[in-house]
């Protein structure tokens, strides 16, 4: 009996902690800071997607995001599938695909697992694995099939936004975003904030990576224990958190210096001098744009109609 309870507890602990421990490792191994940099870096290429009307590109994630809220999970997965299709058109680099896969699969597993553990449907509950009392006191009675399905549904909703936003991010020059925002009568500061963020995010990631290297070069032990050296992991976590505090000073100083220069440059180039900005960009609407607008409109209107008719609509209450 004790053996059985012990075994059940071990299995339960493994089930609860396996995913939270595997996901960061997966992220560090497969993506890391350099991967993250690649993800948010614009790839200048000559594809129809790059030439698409920037306004349509801004509307696309918003439109698809709305669709993802309206539908039940089966329809939801269809919407998610639709957002994958333009990626084949874009043909991103292998490095980007690798990072994207992790960024999609990681949250999917996390959502799927988290909801499976903690989402409790009304009884009768179908447990895939029921935890013993030694584990259940933590708040989860076990892994439920319904919870996992619910998790998948929630994750897919998030992934629709992630997939559409990433597609636009890697195929659109920030200047085009700014242009689109200005056409939508948004204040120039919105475009500038986005421009500065997207331009300097890769630089910031590079800098963080550099300072973490520097701290190791100075003799700070950042070496990770092997997965089975359980007694060394708490010490490693402590070292890691101390290191974050250490690197803050050079990061902060470097960032403040850079920001001061950037602010002077923006001032000198006349940012904020006029309420309405001019634009180098002129966009002549092409057949691809028209098709794009039409498809997006059909999808959104179709979704609203279906929702009104109760087909695939989410149940509230």
């Amino acid at each position, binding site marked *: 009996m004790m053996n059985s309870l012990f075994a059940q507890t071990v299995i339960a602990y493994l089930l609860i902690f396996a995913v939270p421990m595997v996901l960061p490792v997966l992220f560090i191994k497969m993506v890391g800071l350099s991967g993250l940099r690649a993800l948010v870096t614009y790839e200048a290429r000559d594809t129809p997607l790059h030439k698409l009307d920037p306004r349509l590109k801004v509307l696309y994630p918003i439109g698809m995001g709305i669709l993802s809220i309206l539908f039940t999970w089966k329809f939801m997965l269809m919407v998610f599938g639709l957002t994958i299709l333009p990626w084949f058109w874009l043909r991103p680099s292998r490095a980007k695909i690798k990072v994207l896969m992790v960024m999609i699969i990681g949250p999917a597993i996390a959502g799927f697992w988290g909801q499976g553990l903690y989402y409790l449907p009304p009884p009768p509950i179908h447990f895939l694995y029921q935890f013993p009392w030694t584990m259940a006191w933590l708040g989860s009675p076990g892994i439920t099939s319904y919870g996992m399905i619910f998790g998948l549904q929630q994750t897919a909703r998030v992934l629709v936004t992630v997939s559409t936003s990433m597609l636009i991010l890697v195929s659109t020059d920030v200047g085009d975003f700014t242009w689109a925002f200005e056409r939508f009568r948004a204040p120039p500061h919105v475009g500038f904030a986005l421009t500065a963020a997207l331009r300097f995010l890769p630089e910031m990631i590079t800098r963080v990576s550099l*300072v973490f290297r520097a701290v190791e*070069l100075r003799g*700070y032990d950042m070496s990770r224990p092997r997965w089975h050296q359980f007694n060394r992991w708490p010490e490693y976590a402590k070292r890691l958190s101390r290191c974050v505090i250490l690197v803050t000073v050079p990061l902060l100083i470097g960032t403040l210096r850079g920001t001061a220069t950037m602010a002077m440059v923006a001032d000198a*180039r006349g940012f904020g001098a*006029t309420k309405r900005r001019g634009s180098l960009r002129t966009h002549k609407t092409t057949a691809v744009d028209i098709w794009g607008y039409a498809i997006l409109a059909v999808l959104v209107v179709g979704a609203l109609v279906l929702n009104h008719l109760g087909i695939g609509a989410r149940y509230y209450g």
Partner: protein
Amino acid sequence: MSEARTAGELRADDVSFAYVGAARASLRHVNLSVAPGEVILITGASGCGKSTLALALCGLIPSRVHGELRGRVMFGATPLSGMKPHEASQLVGMVFQNPNLQLINQTVQSEVAFGPENLALPQPEIAARVDWCLDVTGMAGMRTAAVVTLSGGQKQRTAIAATLAMRPRILVLDEPLSDLDPVGAQEVLATLQRLARNGGTGVVVIEHRVDEVAPWADRVVLMDDGGIVLDQPPRAAWAEPGPWRAAGVGIPDMVRLAHAVPGAFGSRLPLSVVEAADAVKDTWFEAALAAAAAERRNAAGVPAGQRPDPRPPVLSWDGVSVEFDGKRAVDDVTLAVDEGEWVALIGANGSGKSTLTGLTVGLGKPSAGVVRFRGRPVRPGKVFDHAAHVALLLQAADDMLFETTVRKELEFGFRFRARPEDPVLDVPEAVEFFGFAGREADSPWELSQGGRQRLALAALLVGAPGVLVLDEPTTGQDATHMRSFLRLLDRVRARTGITIVTVTHDIRGLASRAARVVLLGEGQVRADGPTSRVFAMSGDLIRWGVLAPPLARLQSELLGPAAGDVLLEVDELASAVLAHRRGTARVTSPGSGVLRP
């Protein structure tokens, strides 16, 4: 002065400026004028007020940088000091040192269009300005390129183009060459000259690299302690070395040589290698130089390609390749560094220098080959383990400081690692040796930039590493700081006998000090040998994006392949030439060298 001349002229009239809270003024009674089409070189020791003057000249003082300003900066009859930055920038444009911080947009053309767009100009006008700016800076072919993919020179030229798009009459550039390799620097200087000569733009270049700017400048301004010491045409400015020595600022090598060998270059002070070579062609100087070179050749003893040290190398790269996104940054490099050697790795930006040295501490992973430290393979990713043996000083030394006091900084490495049993330099000795006595309790951030670099170096050395790897340690430093850093390295070597590997663009200073130079081009070793021999290969160096030091180029220009092992110190060259003129030759001993095709 005529009305026509003053109309487009930038003037600083008795300008003094003190930053908020500063005890001393950074600028003191500065008077300066810049006419359209003029190229002015402003130089001086670090902290002499050059960058502050630049900010004042373009109106960012006092509008964005606050403090107490006296005197006035005028463009023609218009005072700049009271203008808004975007108004002033249409008269005087400013290009900052680090192009990464001033390129806000993602592509070249959107960066250049940013200013005119902010001015709400009509689209055809914006397009015309973008076209002109990209054309004049030679960036037209890269208009849709992403900024992150540009080289240093291309980024700086994009920054210039973006500043020019505001249509300034005067362009002020604060150390535009400091992060650039020699080829990138020449690209930028050629652009500036085109602007001045063809476009009539006044150009003010603030720079430590006087050798490269000297041939292009119409006037040279020397600053010291916030004031202007000297403001003259280049030949007049350098006719008397006294003020330069007093200000601790270097002068071009050709000028120094002309002073060291009086009369050899005629009455006209040479500012460039070409001018110097033209002046001494078919004269006694050329004959004496040839005789000295022949004598050195005859004295050469060690056969080419032979490693003089029979001990195993301290560092070695065996058939090492590194790939990033399918591209080879390092391509099948085989190299060995012996105990106690001082080796300089040179090459254009992106030639693989930093990647190669990073591998010695486990930064990065070779796609092929092995890197070894004293025969043991370096394991990728194990930076903490390898950093105990190989100390890597990053270019941004500030990024290597993490503690609150100088002493804690020096002790930092012993948190996780035992103190060396027999340190060549322990912490109290390092405090003395590196000049921190009495400042142990100070914050590292209270030290000067040079002081912070010394501290980072000291903190690495107390760990008793076997090799010191320096990544661009002299970038942006003035001649005095560079000399004192080189002296410090000499003292460190004399004290510890440590092996030094430097990655550098500083061909004239740091690379010339090394005993051996390795030239990298497109990830491969293109030349490897004694410094004096590799720098004689001017043509090969240019092919791989490197300019030999001016003295080496002069010898190659005059003697061709017969130059052999070139002399790299002005005094050394002057003595050799003068000795042969008198028929009393001195012999220097060159080493071996191998040129790889």
